[in-house]
Structure formats: C-alpha cells, structure tokens
C-alpha cells in the first residue's frame, strides 16, 4: 500500500460516513429515526436490501469459493426470487396494513405477547452474534494480509458504522448503503476488467471459458439428488427458498429496509429489484473468482494464499522443506503454462494437465502439513485469501485502495443494517412494549433509540474482539442462522396461513421443532440448508397435532 491507496481508501470511507451523518443529522421522532420517515423510493430500498445482505465476506470468500470449487454456489440463490414473489403477495401487504415497525409486532396481534417476545429474542441473539462476525470476518483477513492490528481493525470498522447509524438512523443507513453499493460494484467491475486484460495476451475470452470448463469451474447447475451435497438445484430451490423467505420476511434487518419505503408499491419494487438482480450479481462475483483461477494459470501463484504461513514456517525452521515444495510447485506451473500456450488443444494435453493439477494438489497438501507442523492451531484453508492476495499482488496502486474500500464498505453496510434492526427490535418490542404506560417525548424516544444503537454497536465490537478466542466461530454462526431460521419461518407461516392452531400450539410446536433441528444437526450429516425446510415444516405439523390433540380433550 502506498499513499495513493490510503488516499482512495480513507477518502472513500470518510466521504460516505461524513456525507451520511451530515445529510441525516436531524431526526425528530421515532418513525423518522427507525423507518427514515417512510419516504424511501424503490431504488433506495432495493440497493439497501442488497447492501444489507452482501457483507464483506461475500466479496472476500465468494471469488475464492469459485476459484476452488467452481460456480455451484450460485444455486444457493435460486430460491430467492420465488421467496420474494411469495413475500410480496402475502407478508408485505400485511406489514403495511398493520403499520408495524418490526416483524415481531405482527405476532402479538396474531397470537400473544409471549410469541412476539420469543421470536424477537431469537432474532436479537442470532443477529447480535452475526453483527460481531460481520465485523470480525473481514477484519481477520485484512489484518492478516495487510499486517494491520486485528483489534484496531475491528474497532475502526465498528466505530465508523456507529457514527452514522446512531446519528442518522435508518435514513443514514439507506443513504450510505446507496453509495457503498456504488463503490462495491464499481470496484468489482474494475477488478473484472483488469483480469480480462491480464489474461488476454495468453487466451481469448472464449479460450478462458474453455480452460475454466476443463478444470470443472463452470459446473453451475447440479441436478443430482443427494441430500449430503451442499449445493444442488434441489437444495437451492427448496432450502434456499425457505432460507430466503425467512431472511427477507422475518429478519428485522431486512424487514426494516423495505418498511422504510414510501408505499407498499415502492417496497415491492425494491424487493423485485433484488429478485431480478441478485442471481446475476452473484454469478458475476463467482465468475470473477473463476477468472482469478484462469489468471493464475499464466501468472506466478503462491502455493498457499495466506502469506502469514510463510513466517510461521520460517520461525519453525522449516524453510528449506517449504522452499523445495515451492520450487517443485513453480516448475509444474511453468510446464502447465507451456502446454497451455504452445498452440496445442486442451484435448491433446488433457492427461498431462490433469497430472500436473494432481501433483500440484499433492504438493499443496505437503505444504499444509508443514504449516500444521509449524503451528498446530493454524487454519490451512486459504480460499478467503485468494481474491485479496490477487488484488494486493497484481492490481495497480489506487485500484488496491479502491478494492479495500469495497471490502470495508460491504462490512459497514451490512453492519449498519444489523445495528439499526437490533436497536429497533430492542426499542419497539421490548422497551416500549414492556413500558406502555411511560409517556416520553419524541425527542427522548429518539435518544433512547440512539442509546440502543450505541449499545448494540459496542456489543458487536466486543463480540468481534472476543471472536478470535473461539475456533471456527464464523462457520458456527452461519450454521446457527440456518438452525433457527426454519423455526422462525414456521411460526410466521402459521401466523399468516394456518388459522386453526392458537398461540399456545404454535409455541409448543416451535420448541419441538427447534429440538428436532438441533438433534438432527448433532446426529446426522444433512446439509445445513435443509434445516430451514425441516424446522419450518416441523412447526406447522406439530402445531396442528397440538391443536387436534387439544380439541379432542
């Protein structure tokens, strides 16, 4: 990083933070603070929904995932347009008619206070932890590759978000997210075109596709029916549908985004915007990862993308062995480059290329063994580091600063949406609901709202600071989401569509379904996406069983 990168990075971030804070500095009442005065247009809502969902890890991990395993992850999003259509028809008109601030308010109107508090509590726990990870996940990668202090990175990201989220509330979140999405997409397009430019002396676009296909990176759709395979068209269309319905329909961090629209029509259009663009956007990010893969067939590629491991190996006195592995790895890379550029076809060289690939993988496994020998606690998976390492090693100065801004903007935009939602739920579902007799002025309500935003911001930073103490925490929190989402969705589906079971039946069903999902999680190998569907159906079935049992008494 040179001064130009710092200028672009800090200039972009500070401009967005200061602009958002300045433009939204006066919030008079709770509606304007929590829902931005309900005056956002569809484009603002659409971008805000998109920015809340796309966290930094989307831009760090997704290209790395395509680099390693191809584009199959795209299927995860196939259920999303279906979910949005269902929500637009059913959930959203009801939220508008009842003029709710949070999704959980509806559950009290439909059932009882107990149900509202249970679901709001589940949301706070899950989203509060997730907000910490939203900060921690990019901070750990950036601190590793940039040599930044991890704690300081966590604190800076968290504080920047707190500044404008506390000051301007929902409106500031919407406004900054629009700019952040512009920076994110601009940066990603630039990286994409730079990749095409770097590859072009060696292969045309069509040849690059052929090569990616040869290495199995373009297997987008998988029609095999195997519940243990994580991404297939079936798990995407069903598990993905339930996950998206739960996320967009019942997670306050999303509900709050579209409830800030000026009308039902604008809300729906904002969501339809996502239904249309989300899959192409993910395709584009994954495809960028595939191009990074093709790029590294022609340019020098590290054996391991996490540079810190080199220091670990050196400190453990294993440099000589690592050097031998690297030399052999590079030799194979040269041989492959010759085969790819000598004018012969892929078909003719198929066997040789596959052998080289297998040998390189064996060398990488050997290198990983050295890493573990040097530090038994070290993480050997390096897919999160692929894209950022490419950016830092090969992109020109200025663009590096912009791409780092992309990652930090993404971290900030999703954290802001989360803090805003956590504060709203605490304020509306707990503070105001449990103190109904306390009459306070609009100004004081806004103050309390701001206080809760700061509180959740500090909690998220603290959790991010503690996260390094736990192993595999990121994965755990991601899976945690799927373990609870199915049950929450089941509760909402009962509330919307199944009139017979009463609050007490659904309450029991929610507890039973959650126990079932957790037992399956601990005792089987079912892909985690399926838990969304299982939890949801379990709530509905058990609620009916409890209802009929109750009636027959």
């Amino acid at each position, binding site marked *: 990083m040179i001064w130009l990168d710092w200028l672009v990075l800090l200039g972009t971030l500070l401009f967005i933070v200061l602009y958002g804070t300045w433009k939204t500095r006066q919030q008079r009442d709770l509606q304007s603070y929590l829902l931005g005065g*309900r*005056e956002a247009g569809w484009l603002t809502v659409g971008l805000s929904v998109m920015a809340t969902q796309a966290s930094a890890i989307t831009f760090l991990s997704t290209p790395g995932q395509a680099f390693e395993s191809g584009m199959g992850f*795209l299927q995860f999003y*196939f259920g999303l*347009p*279906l979910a*949005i*259509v269902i929500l*637009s*028809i059913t959930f959203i008109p009801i939220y*508008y008619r009842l003029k709710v601030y949070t999704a959980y308010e509806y559950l009290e109107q439909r059932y009882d206070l107990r149900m509202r508090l249970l679901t709001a509590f589940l949301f706070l726990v899950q989203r509060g932890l997730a907000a910490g990870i939203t900060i921690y996940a990019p901070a750990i990668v950036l601190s590793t590759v940039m040599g930044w202090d991890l704690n300081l990175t966590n604190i800076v990201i968290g504080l920047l978000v707190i500044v404008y989220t506390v000051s301007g509330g929902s409106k500031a979140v919407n406004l900054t997210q629009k700019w952040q999405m512009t920076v994110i997409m601009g940066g990603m397009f630039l990286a994409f075109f730079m990749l095409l430019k770097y590859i072009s002396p060696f292969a045309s676009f069509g040849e690059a*596709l*052929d090569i*990616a*296909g*040869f290495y*199995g990176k*373009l*297997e*987008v*759709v*998988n*029609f095999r029916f195997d519940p243990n395979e994580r991404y297939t*068209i079936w798990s995407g269309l069903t598990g993905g549908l339930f996950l998206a319905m739960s996320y967009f329909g019942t997670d306050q961090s999303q509900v709050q985004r579209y409830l800030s629209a*000026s*009308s*039902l*029509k604008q809300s*729906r259009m904002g969501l*339809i915007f996502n*239904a*249309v663009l989300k*899959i*192409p956007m993910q*395709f584009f990010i994954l495809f960028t990862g595939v191009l990074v893969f093709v790029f590294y067939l022609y340019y020098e590629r590290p054996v391991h993308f996490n540079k810190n491991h080199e220091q670990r190996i050196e400190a453990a006195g294993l440099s000589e062995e690592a050097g031998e592995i690297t030399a052999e790895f590079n030799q194979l890379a040269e041989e492959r480059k010759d085969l790819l550029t000598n004018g012969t076809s892929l078909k003719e060289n198929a066997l040789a290329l596959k052998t080289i690939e297998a040998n390189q993988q064996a060398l990488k496994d050997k290198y990983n063994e050295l890493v573990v020998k040097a530090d038994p606690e070290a993480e050997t998976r390096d897919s999160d580091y692929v894209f950022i390492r490419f950016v830092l090693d090969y992109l020109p100065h200025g663009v590096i600063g912009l791409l780092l801004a992309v990652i930090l903007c993404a971290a900030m935009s999703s954290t802001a949406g989360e803090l805003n939602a956590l504060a709203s739920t605490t304020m509306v579902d707990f503070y105001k609901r449990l103190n109904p007799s306390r009459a306070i002025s609009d100004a004081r309500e806004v103050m309390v709202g701001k206080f809760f935003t700061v509180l959740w911001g500090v909690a998220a930073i603290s959790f991010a600071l503690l996260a390094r103490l736990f192993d595999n925490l990121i994965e755990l929190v991601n899976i945690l989401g799927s373990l609870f989402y199915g049950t929450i969705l089941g509760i909402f589906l009962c509330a919307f569509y199944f009139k017979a079971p009463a609050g007490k039946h659904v309450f029991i069903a929610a507890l039973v379904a959650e126990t079932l999902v957790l037992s399956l999680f601990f005792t089987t190998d079912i892909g985690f996406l399926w838990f969304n569907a299982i939890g949801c159906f379990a709530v509905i079935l058990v609620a009916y069983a409890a209802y009929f049992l109750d009636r027959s008494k």
Partner: protein
Amino acid sequence: MNPETEEDKTDWNKVYLLVLGFLALQILVYALITEHYTA
C-alpha cells in the same frame, strides 16, 4: 406519500410472472453453460 392512498395500477401478477420467467430462463442458461463446459 401515504401508503394507503398512493395509487397503484401495477399489474403485479404480470410482474411476478416476469420474475419467475426470468428465473427459469437463467436456470436454463446456467444448465446449458454446465452442459457445454463440463466434459
């Protein structure tokens, strides 16, 4: 604008059909890409 009063003449059924049609088209294109590039 008031959510209760804003006039909405959108034919939402048509919009939803277009969204689902676009999804089907995308899956078809991705399946063709998979078919073409997977040996």
